[in-house]
């Protein structure tokens, strides 16, 4: 079946809609909402590269987010680097970490890979906790004089928003490109049957390592942007395991291995969280309600929203990818 161009246009339109809305209204509250949504989308869509396309369950996505955040924060706050170059370095540091450990840990499969990614995250958190240049347990805080160079705190909030918007767009386009390319085909073949892929001539370890590296680059950028605007960073904020798991949930919710799935999943999950947090009855047990919803999805709709639609309504396969 020929794939329609809508498979690219739809995901981009969704992100544009979320991203442009605050730019039109110029409202702070809209900007903050969209920031949270875009961050969720960027994390989920980048995780999807290794989780959905390649079939490796990583609980370590947040390690790249935290490391990127720390590296960029350190460069801006302590070394006086310009913001854009620090963000880039944050992404590169995350990608480098993934590249270095990828060759080793991607040999593990299934539950063993999932466990080692938890281990990498906890080891990094414990190490940063003891690493004095990054402030050890208390972390680092931003001197507000740094913000003045960018026009003050309010201007920083807008500037970082623009950056995140652009990064999210790039994540979406890259993930479409991967899905549609021969590289992506190799990843999908690894997901379906790694041994068979190897026999058919896919250089599996090369494919996996690059998928992992690409998937780590973007959370590095997002972490760098987030912690710069946050004005402080400390180990427990930078490496929370539950953010990794939430990212997995977003990917599952929308449909792993699809391009638009993690986008819808990210938006849907955040929307649900806001709904629960603002509901007087459910506010206190919002985590439990979210858990119950997750269980229902895992047990009954494991393919996620997009996977379910594609199976039930074959006509949607042309436009949903």
């Amino acid at each position, binding site marked *: 079946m020929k794939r329609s161009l809508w498979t690219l246009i739809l995901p981009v339109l969704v992100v544009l809609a979320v991203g442009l809305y605050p730019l039109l209204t110029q409202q702070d509250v809209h900007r903050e909402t969209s920031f949270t949504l875009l961050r969720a989308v960027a994390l989920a869509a980048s995780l999807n590269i290794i989780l959905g396309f390649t079939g490796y369950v990583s609980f370590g996505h947040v390690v790249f987010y935290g490391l990127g955040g720390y590296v960029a924060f350190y460069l801006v706050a302590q070394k006086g680097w310009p913001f854009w170059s620090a963000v880039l370095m944050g992404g590169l540091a995350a990608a480098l970490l993934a590249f270095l450990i990828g060759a080793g840990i991607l*040999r593990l499969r299934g539950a063993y890979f999932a466990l080692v990614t938890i*281990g990498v995250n906890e080891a990094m958190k414990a190490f940063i906790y003891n690493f004095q240049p990054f402030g050890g347990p208390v972390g680092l805080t931003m001197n507000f004089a740094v913000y003045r160079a960018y026009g003050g705190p309010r201007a920083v909030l807008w500037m970082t928003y623009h950056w995140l918007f652009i990064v999210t767009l790039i994540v979406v386009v890259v993930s479409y490109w991967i899905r549609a390319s021969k590289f992506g085909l190799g990843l999908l073949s690894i997901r379906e049957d790694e041994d068979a892929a190897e026999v058919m001539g896919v250089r599996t370890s090369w494919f996996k390592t690059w998928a992992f590296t690409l998937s780590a680059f973007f959370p590095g950028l997002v972490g760098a942007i987030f912690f710069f605007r946050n004005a402080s960073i400390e180990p427990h904020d930078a490496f929370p395991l539950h953010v990794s798991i939430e990212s997995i949930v977003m990917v599952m919710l929308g449909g792993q291995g699809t391009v638009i799935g993690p986008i819808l999943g990210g938006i849907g999950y955040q929307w649900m969280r806001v709904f629960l947090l603002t509901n007087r009855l459910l506010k*206190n047990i919002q*985590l439990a309600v979210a858990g119950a919803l997750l*269980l229902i999805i895992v*047990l009954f709709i494991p393919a996620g929203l997009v996977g379910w639609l594609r199976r039930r309504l074959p006509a949607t396969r042309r436009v949903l990818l």
Partner: protein
Amino acid sequence: MDMGFLFASLIDGLLLGFVFGVAAIGLTLIFGVMEVINLAHGPVIALGMFGLYFATTLLGVHPYMGTLLTAAGGLLLGILIYAIAVHRVIGAPHLSSLLATYSINMMIIGVGTALLTTSPRNIEFSLGSVTLGAATIPVTRIVAALASLLAAVALYLFMQYTRWGKFIRAVTDNRDAAELVGIPSTKVLALSFGLGTMLAAFSGALIATLFPFTILEGGKYELKSFVISVLGGLGNPMGALIGGIIIGLIEGLVPVFLPTTWVLVVEFVLFVLILLIRPTGLFGGRAH
């Protein structure tokens, strides 16, 4: 170096290691039988702590009697969790079972923080202490270590000599073949999950006799259980006990040479290295 401090620190770590070991046996038992990594392990440990808390404060039973009650409650809870979340994802991709058990984690933590808050509790209970050379050891720690050892031995005897224990081993080896000879595999899986949860709750109750705790406390011990299980070989219960002792000794040894905050670095680096170099652990894990 101060030998007295080293000795005291090692004894301290060793005794705790037995308790960590029991928690890890629960995790590794479940993985061994059904290849499910139970991400609800931590909250169950925390529920064990609160189980003991309520047994002593509301029912007024002796703390060690309370640990047995808590263990029984853990068994039932485990079977319930199996029926609700795990049964349908047996044999599904790992992602499904990881997320299904994590959803239970979220539910327990969500309801737990709403009802119990996150302010620390503790159980007022002391048996004095004994002095051994340079080490002054609270008796509660010795009892906790002995109780853990007893639990491990009891599990071993159960698995070796009872009918249901043999069923569990048969299902672990080959579920299809076990079903062919008439072993009720669903019941066996439910029982195994129950036993694993029971051990987690029991170790939580023992920890509660030693330290203050909150409903979030289990996460720490869950991570420790991962490290220990992998060290001993995932799916190998007796390996987990020895892994627990090793981790206990590391926790006793590291603070002698480095600031205490490095303990976690050492543990998790070791964890990652073991997975990379010898994923079946030091004593052999579940064969694939």
